[in-house]
C-alpha cells in the first residue's frame, strides 16, 4: 500500500474523529490484515510526554496495531505517530545481539562476553582512576524503574554523581523554574484545566506538531467556546499561531522583555490580584550569579520599580513584538476567568531558560490565575518519562529521588539511611550535567561511559567535538540501544541490544504527573534484553569487582520491576510526591494515576497546592492553610516566589557575519532522532527527510527557491540541506527539525547552557545561509 502523505493525513484525521465517537472505520485496502488483532494489552504511547493511553493489538504473538484508550485522558485519540506505532518493533535495523567493535567493524559476541568486558573495563577504571572515572547517561524514555535503579546504583551504591540524562537537554529549565518559584518540581495542574480555561497563553510551544493530541483539546475549546481566547507567542507562524486570536511574533531570545512588559501592564492597569499576591507570594532577586548564586528577598515596591523600564514600548523596541499586542495579551491574561499557560522547548532550551520559566509563573502569581480549574502554569514535556523517571526519580546529577537534592545534607542522609548504605556514601558535590559529562569524556577524565536509551551522537548541541570524543579509542563507550546503527551506537565500543517499549514492562510518568503501567506484550527480538535486567546484573557484578561483596545482593534484591516499583513508592512516602497509593495492582487497572496519591484508597490528585480542589497534602504540610499553600517552599512560609529577572538576550545573537538565527524543533510525523519514526514506512514516505524553512522575503534576497540546496553555516559547523520557502519563520529566522539522522543539524547548534539548569540553547544560534 502506498499512501501519499496527504492521504495518510486525511486517514489519520478521520480515525481521530471516528475514535472520539467510538466508531470503527473501515481500514484502507492494504492495511486490513494489520488491524485484525486477537488480543489487546494496555500501555502508553512510546513517543512524547503527552502520555496517551493505548491498547496494543496482538496477532500470532506479534504487535500488529495500536488504538487509543477511550477511558484515558486522550479519549481514544492518537496522533499520526501513535497510530503507526507497531512497526517500530519490527524494523530491519533492530539491534539483535551484543556487538563489539574490533578495528572499524562490529563483531557479534555473547552476552556473557559483553558483560565480562563491561564489568572489567568499568571496574579497572574505578580501581585505577577512582569512582568519578565512570559515568552513566540515561533517558526520559527509560522506565521509572530503570532510572530509579541507576540513581540508586551510582549515587548510593558507588558514591558518584556521574549520572545525568537527556532530560537535561529538554526539561531542566522547566524543572529548575518550578523549584525556584514553587519549591518543588512538576506542574500543579493537569490537562483537565484545558476544559475550564477561557484564555490559553502558549509560548515556545508548537503544540499542533509536538503534542497533537493535547492540541485537539485547545482546538475543541476554541471551536465550542465563543469566548475562549488563544494567545500564541512564537517567532514562527505555526498552525497553532495561525489559529490564535493573537499571535505575538518576536525576535528569538527577546521574550523575557515581553513577559516583564506584560507584568508591567498588569500592574500599571491595576489588574493584579492584590489579595493573592499578599497572601501567597514573596519577591526575590539574584544579586550575584555566583556560583553559588546569591539571592535576596525584596519588597513589592522594589518589584514594581524593577518593572518600570519594561514598558510595552521598550519591549517592542527589543523584541519586535507590537506594543498593542503586548498590552492586549496582558489584559486577556489577567481579566479572563481562567488562564492557562503552556510552553515547551521554546522557553526551556535557552541560556535564560529558567528565568523565562520564572517570568511565566510570575504572571500567574501576579494575577492569581493559578490553583483552580482552568488557571495553571504548565510545562509540556518532550519525552514519555522525563518527568516520571528522571525528574521525579532523581536521575539528574544534582538530584536525589522525590524532590531531594544532592547539596542538601539532610536529603543525603535520608537516602543513605533508606538505601542502607554507609553515612557519607552519597557524594555531596553534584556531578557533571549532560554537556559537561561529554566534555569530560572528550578530555578523558571520564574513561568509561554507558549510554542507555538515547542518542547523544545526534541530539547533543555542537555535535562534532562530542562525536569525536565518543569515537575515541582512549575511552570506552557502551551503548544500550534498540536500533543499530544509530548515530551513537555507530561510535560505541560495545553495543548492547535493548528490548523496546512493550517487549518489557514498567512505568511511565507524563507531563501532568500521571503514572501509567505498560504491560509486557511480546518477547524481545532475538537476544535483546530489558535494560533493567542488564543494569541489575552489571550493578551486582561491578560492586563485587570493586570489593563490596556484602553490598552486591543487599542493595539490589529485586526479582522483577514490581519489586523496584514498590521500593520507589517507599522512597516517595511522606514526601510532596507521595506515591504510596499507586500500587502496581491499581496502576494495572487504572487509566493512569496522578500523584500525590498517599494512600491505597486515594484517587490521585488532579490539582496540587489547593485543598479546595483536592490536594490532601496541603493540610499535612501546612495545617493552617485555608486553601492554597505552596508547601514545597517551606523556607518562604509556603509562599511562591515572584522573581525579578531582567531581560538578557541569547548567547549568540545574529550579527553581520552570521545574519540569521537558526532555531530547531519538531515535525508532526517524526520524533526526536528518528530511530523509531524513520522506521515506519508510512511516516517516512510522508516526510522523507529534513529541510530548512526560510521566509519568502529572505529567500528572495538569497535567490533561493523551494527544493534548492542551501548551505547553512555557524561558527561550529556547516551542512547542506534542501530549502523550503514558506511564510512560517519570521524574516531573519530559519528553522530545521532535528529528526533526520542524515542531516545532523546539531553540528550547527550552540552548546552554551543556562547557568542554573545547565540546559543548552538549542533554540538560538547565529548562522549564515547561502545557495549551495
Amino acid at each position, binding site marked *: 500500500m502506498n499512501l501519499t502523505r496527504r492521504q495518510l493525513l486525511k486517514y489519520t484525521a*478521520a480515525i481521530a474523529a471516528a475514535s472520539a465517537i467510538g466508531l470503527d472505520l473501515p481500514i484502507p485496502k492494504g492495511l486490513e490484515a494489520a488491524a485484525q488483532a486477537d488480543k489487546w494489552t494496555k500501555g502508553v504511547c512510546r513517543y512524547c510526554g503527552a502520555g496517551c493511553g493505548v491498547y496494543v493489538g496482538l496477532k500470532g504473538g506479534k504487535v500488529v496495531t495500536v488504538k487509543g484508550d477511550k477511558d484515558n485522558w486522550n479519549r481514544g485519540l492518537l496522533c499520526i505517530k501513535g497510530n503507526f506505532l507497531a512497526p517500530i518493533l519490527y524494523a530491519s535495523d533492530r539491534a539483535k545481539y551484543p556487538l563489539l567493535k574490533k578495528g572499524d567493524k562490529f563483531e557479534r559476541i555473547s552476552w556473557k562476553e559483553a558483560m565480562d568486558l563491561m564489568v572489567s573495563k568499568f571496574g579497572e577504571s574505578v580501581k585505577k582512576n577512582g569512582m568519578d572515572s565512570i559515568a552513566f547517561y540515561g533517558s526520559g524514555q527509560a522506565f521509572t524503574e530503570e532510572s530509579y535503579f541507576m540513581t540508586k546504583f551510582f549515587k548510593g551504591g558507588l558514591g558518584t554523581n556521574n549520572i545525568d540524562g537527556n532530560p537535561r537537554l529538554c526539561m531542566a529549565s522547566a524543572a529548575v523554574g518550578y523549584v525556584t518559584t514553587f519549591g518543588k518540581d512538576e506542574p500543579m495542574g493537569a490537562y483537565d484545566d484545558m476544559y475550564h480555561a477561557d484564555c490559553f497563553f502558549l509560548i515556545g510551544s508548537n503544540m499542533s506538531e509536538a503534542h497533537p493530541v493535547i492540541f485537539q483539546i485547545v482546538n475543541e475549546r476554541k471551536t465550542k467556546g465563543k469566548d475562549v481566547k488563544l494567545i500564541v507567542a512564537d517567532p514562527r507562524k505555526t498552525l497553532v499561531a495561525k489559529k490564535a486570536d493573537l499571535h505575538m511574533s518576536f525576535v528569538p531570545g527577546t521574550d523575557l522583555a515581553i513577559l516583564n512588559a506584560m507584568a508591567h501592564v498588569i500592574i500599571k492597569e491595576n489588574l493584579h490580584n492584590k489579595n493573592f499576591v499578599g497572601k501567597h507570594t514573596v519577591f526575590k532577586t539574584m544579586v550575584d550569579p555566583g556560583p553559588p548564586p546569591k539571592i535576596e528577598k525584596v519588597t513589592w515596591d522594589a518589584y514594581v520599580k524593577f518593572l518600570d523600564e519594561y514598558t510595552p514600548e521598550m519591549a517592542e523596541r527589543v523584541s519586535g513584538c507590537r506594543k498593542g499586542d503586548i498590552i492586549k495579551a496582558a489584559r486577556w491574561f489577567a481579566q479572563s476567568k481562567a488562564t492557562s499557560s503552556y510552553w515547551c522547548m521554546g522557553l526551556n532550551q535557552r541560556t535564560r531558560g529558567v528565568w523565562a520559566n520564572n517570568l511565566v509563573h510570575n504572571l500567574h502569581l501576579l494575577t492569581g490565575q493559578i490553583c483552580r480549574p482552568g488557571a495553571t502554569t504548565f510545562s509540556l514535556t518532550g519525552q514519555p518519562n522525563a518527568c516520571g523517571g528522571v525528574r521525579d526519580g532523581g536521575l539528574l546529577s544534582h538530584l536525589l529521588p522525590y524532590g531531594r537534592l544532592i547539596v542538601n545534607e539532610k536529603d543525603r542522609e535520608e537516602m543513605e539511611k533508606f538505601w542502607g548504605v554507609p553515612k557519607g556514601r552519597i557524594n555531596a558535590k553534584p556531578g557533571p550535567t549532560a554537556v559537561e559529562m561529554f566534555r569530560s569524556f572528550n578530555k578523558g577524565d571520564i574513561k568509561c561511559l554507558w549510554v542507555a536509551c538515547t542518542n547523544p551522537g545526534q541530539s547533543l548541541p555542537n555535535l562534532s567535538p562530542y562525536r569525536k570524543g565518543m569515537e575515541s579509542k582512549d575511552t570506552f563507550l557502551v551503548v544500550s540501544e534498540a536500533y543499530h546503527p544509530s548515530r551513537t551506537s555507530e561510535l560505541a565500543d560495545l553495543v548492547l541490544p535493548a528490548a523496546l517499549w512493550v517487549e518489557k514492562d514498567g512505568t511511565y510518568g507524563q507531563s501532568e504527573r500521571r503514572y501509567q503501567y505498560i504491560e509486557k506484550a511480546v518477547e524481545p527480538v532475538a537476544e535483546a534484553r530489558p535494560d533493567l535486567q542488564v543494569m541489575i546484573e552489571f550493578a551486582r557484578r561491578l560492586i563485587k569487582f570493586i570489593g563490596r561483596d556484602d553490598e552486591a545482593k543487599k542493595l539490589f534484591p529485586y526479582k522483577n520491576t514490581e519489586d523496584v516499583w514498590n521500593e520507589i513508592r517507599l522512597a516517595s512516602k511522606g514526601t510532596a510526591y507521595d506515591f504510596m497509593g499507586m500500587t502496581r495492582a491499581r496502576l494495572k487497572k487504572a487509566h493512569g494515576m496522578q500523584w500525590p496519591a498517599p494512600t491505597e484508597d486515594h484517587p490521585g490528585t488532579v490539582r496540587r497546592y489547593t485543598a479546595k480542589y483536592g490536594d490532601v497534602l496541603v493540610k499535612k504540610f501546612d495545617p493552617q492553610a485555608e486553601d492554597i499553600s505552596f508547601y514545597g517552599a517551606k523556607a518562604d512560609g509556603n509562599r511562591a516566589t515572584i522573581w525579578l529577572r531582567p531581560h538578557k538576550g541569547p548567547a549568540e545573537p545574529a550579527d553581520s557575519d552570521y545574519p540569521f538565527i537558526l532555531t530547531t524543533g519538531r515535525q508532526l510525523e517524526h520524533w526526536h532522532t528518528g530511530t523509531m519514526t524513520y522506521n515506519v514506512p508510512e511516516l517516512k514516505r510522508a516526510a522523507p527527510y529534513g529541510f530548512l524553512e526560510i521566509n519568502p522575503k529572505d529567500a528572495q534576497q538569497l535567490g533561493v527557491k523551494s527544493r534548492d540546496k542551501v548551505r547553512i553555516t555557524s561558527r561550529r559547523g556547516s551542512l547542506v540541506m534542501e530549502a523550503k520557502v514558506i511564510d512560517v519563520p519570521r524574516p531573519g529566522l530559519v528553522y530545521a527539525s532535528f529528526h533526520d539522522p542524515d542531516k545532523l543539524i546539531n553540528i550547527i547548534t550552540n552548546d552554551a547552557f543556562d547557568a542554573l539548569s545547565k540546559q543548552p540553547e538549542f533554540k538560538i544560534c547565529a548562522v549564515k545561509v547561502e545557495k549551495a
Partner: protein
Amino acid sequence: MPVSGAIVEIEEGTEEAVLSGLARIPEVSVYGMKENRIVIVIDGGSLGVIEKSTNRIQSMEGVTGVFPVYSTIDE
C-alpha cells in the same frame, strides 16, 4: 495545506438531508456515521477554506454542531 477531522452532530431524522448537503461541499469527505454523529474530513487549501466549510456545515438545516477533533497541516 490543512486537514481537519471533525464530527458533525445532527438532529434526528435529518441524516439524508445533511449527508446530501455535505456531498455538495467539494473539500468535505464523509467517513462514517454513528447515531446522530457524522465523521468528516475537511481537506482545505487554507485555514480559511476549513473555516468557511465549517461555517457552511454549521448553518445547514438539521446540524446542531460541528466539532473539529483533529487538525494538521501539510504545506
